[in-house]
């Protein structure tokens, strides 16, 4: 056992990278659920984002265009969910599952010619002086822009939900769509925008995996991260900063436990392997003892005739 072989600075830097895809997907889903829609298709939108971001980045040589394409791809796929649940009024759970299945299959199809290709490297922030600082530099000032964007999105969502009129309306739609409708708010239109935002975020999260975290395309490479993001929203009691905390905890403990294993720490590996799930759930459950509950209209179908 040799803990000195773990470099804490590199560790923190890599746990931030590991947490970002979950964070992006979860913050998008949080907005969707705050609007009263349960979209279980996060995994599908992520993988579509992963493949479209990868494909466009490879074709154009620009990771930035790749990330934009990923957001567009995720949002486009979420339109399918919009059509099913907001227009055809289909069951949201079934539609979300269908979205995941479709996304996984479709991404495998379009990704076939991209296996084994290296994407263009995503640029990292390099501020003279700041990025060269000893400990703070690698942790705070030398990541790629998308990582900072993900934190900015969390802050923006928090601000929007808490302090703006738009946020209030969104929450009203999610809590009681009939009342919001009676007040004259366009329930369906607001939900469509929320769903597309969620799709774009999930797409970004997927592309973060295929362009930054793993830099390659492999079928099914999201490997269940979308489901973890979904669970995280619930355990974080639909609160943006707790989603951030949960994502960093989960990503963090995952990376830490692998490092501990490599360092030969005398904790049985099976406990280490389950620790990310366990610790994240325990912390968030303790935090949520204030009984904040789900949006009241979550998953219910809205029809203007009611």
């Amino acid at each position, binding site marked *: 056992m040799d803990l000195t072989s773990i470099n804490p600075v590199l560790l923190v830097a890599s746990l931030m990278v590991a947490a970002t895809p979950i964070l992006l997907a979860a913050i998008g889903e949080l907005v969707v659920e705050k609007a009263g829609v349960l979209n279980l298709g996060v995994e599908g939108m992520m993988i579509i984002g992963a493949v479209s971001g990868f494909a466009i980045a490879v074709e154009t040589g620009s990771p930035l265009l790749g990330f934009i394409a990923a957001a567009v791809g995720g949002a486009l796929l979420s339109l399918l969910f919009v059509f099913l649940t907001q227009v055809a009024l289909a069951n949201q759970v079934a539609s979300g599952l269908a979205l995941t299945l479709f996304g996984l299959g479709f991404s495998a199809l379009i990704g076939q010619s991209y296996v084994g290709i290296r994407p263009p490297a995503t640029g990292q922030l390099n501020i003279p002086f700041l990025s060269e600082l000893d400990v703070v530099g690698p942790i705070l000032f030398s990541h790629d822009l998308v990582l900072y964007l993900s934190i900015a999105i969390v802050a923006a969502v928090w601000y929007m939900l808490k302090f703006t009129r738009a946020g209030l309306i969104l929450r009203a739609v999610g809590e009681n769509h009939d009342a919001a409708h009676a007040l004259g708010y366009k329930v369906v239109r607001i939900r469509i925008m929320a769903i597309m935002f969620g799709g774009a975020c999930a797409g970004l999260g997927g592309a973060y995996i295929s362009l930054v975290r793993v830099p390659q395309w492999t079928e099914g490479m999201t490997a269940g991260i979308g489901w973890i993001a979904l669970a995280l929203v619930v355990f974080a009691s639909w609160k943006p900063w707790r989603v951030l905390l949960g994502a960093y905890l989960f990503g963090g403990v995952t990376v830490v436990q*692998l490092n501990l294993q490599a360092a030969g720490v005398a904790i049985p590996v099976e406990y280490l392997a389950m620790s990310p799930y366990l610790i994240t759930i325990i912390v968030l459950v303790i935090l949520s003892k204030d009984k904040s509950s789900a949006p009241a209209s979550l998953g219910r179908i809205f029809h203007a005739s009611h």
Partner: protein
Amino acid sequence: MKLTKLLTSAALALGMATGAMADTTKVGFVYVGPVGDGGWTYEHDKGRLAVEAEFGDAVETTYVENVAEGPDAERVMTQMALSGAKLIFTTSFGFMDPTINVAKKFPNVKFEHATGYKTADNVSVYSARFYEGRAIQGTIAGRMTKSNVIGYIGSFPIPEVIRGINSAYIHAKKVNPDVTFKIVWVYTWFDPAKETDAAKALIEQGADVILQHTDSTSVLTAAAEAGNVIGFGQASDMAEYADGPRVSSIIDNWAPYYIERTRAVIDGTWETVNTWDGIGRGMVGIGEITDKVPADVKAEALALKASIASGEYHPFTGPINKQDGSVWLKDGETADDGTLAGMGFYVEGIEGDIPS
């Protein structure tokens, strides 16, 4: 993917309606990952395609990919058997009990389970002696490492993986007494992001050679990112990384076995067998050793390969002690297949415990 699973099931259902009269032999394949993983499942699918090429219209193959190890596997196998498959290959260790269970229900269907050890009247097992390839990897790794730290990414603590670790360690140690192994278990066969995290953790802790026993190519990507780190293709050649970190590879070649077993079913000569072939019979191939490896190391590795292939040398030849220091093999003694098949211990010198 899941969609393909649905489509395949639909195709199976159609096949049930039309295939009853046709004189084709149906062969099913159950895969644990996606065909596009570039590794384990990819090679099994190459075997399936070889069967199609060999027999043409006389066989019809179907496959389902991304089948979870567990109850879902039984459902997939049952569906294959119901739709008329006469021979079903189940290609992951975790499909062992599901295969045995389903085989009981369909005595007329032949099953072939990869890397397991439970047989029945209609269940054969087959595997490759990957540890022979690991011996060669270990030799190259031991010679190539500058930090003397070799990282090893394990999937699940099953005998097949433990054998590989032991074999690689013994041979790395033989050529480089200072070498240490850092072993990380990721508890998955296929999760590119997690495999990358594991590789990064090992690299950050000083490993400059990474061996993997997981299925995707993401470990090689992580090695390429890091720069002065080398790795090996796992299960498949992964030659697209040849000008980068990949210096050689272990290639699984299932095609001859799949063709032979399919022919046995067609001819009605199928019997339960326990096949365990290695480099000698071509089931394990060693991918081209690149120029990154110095010529003398390459020659040493190839000589080792030749002596294993001819049967002259066994990678587990004594004296070898177990981790606790007790004697496992005496001088000159070689390991018997029974012990190897159920191997649940590290050899002396490896640090850490095997998760139970």
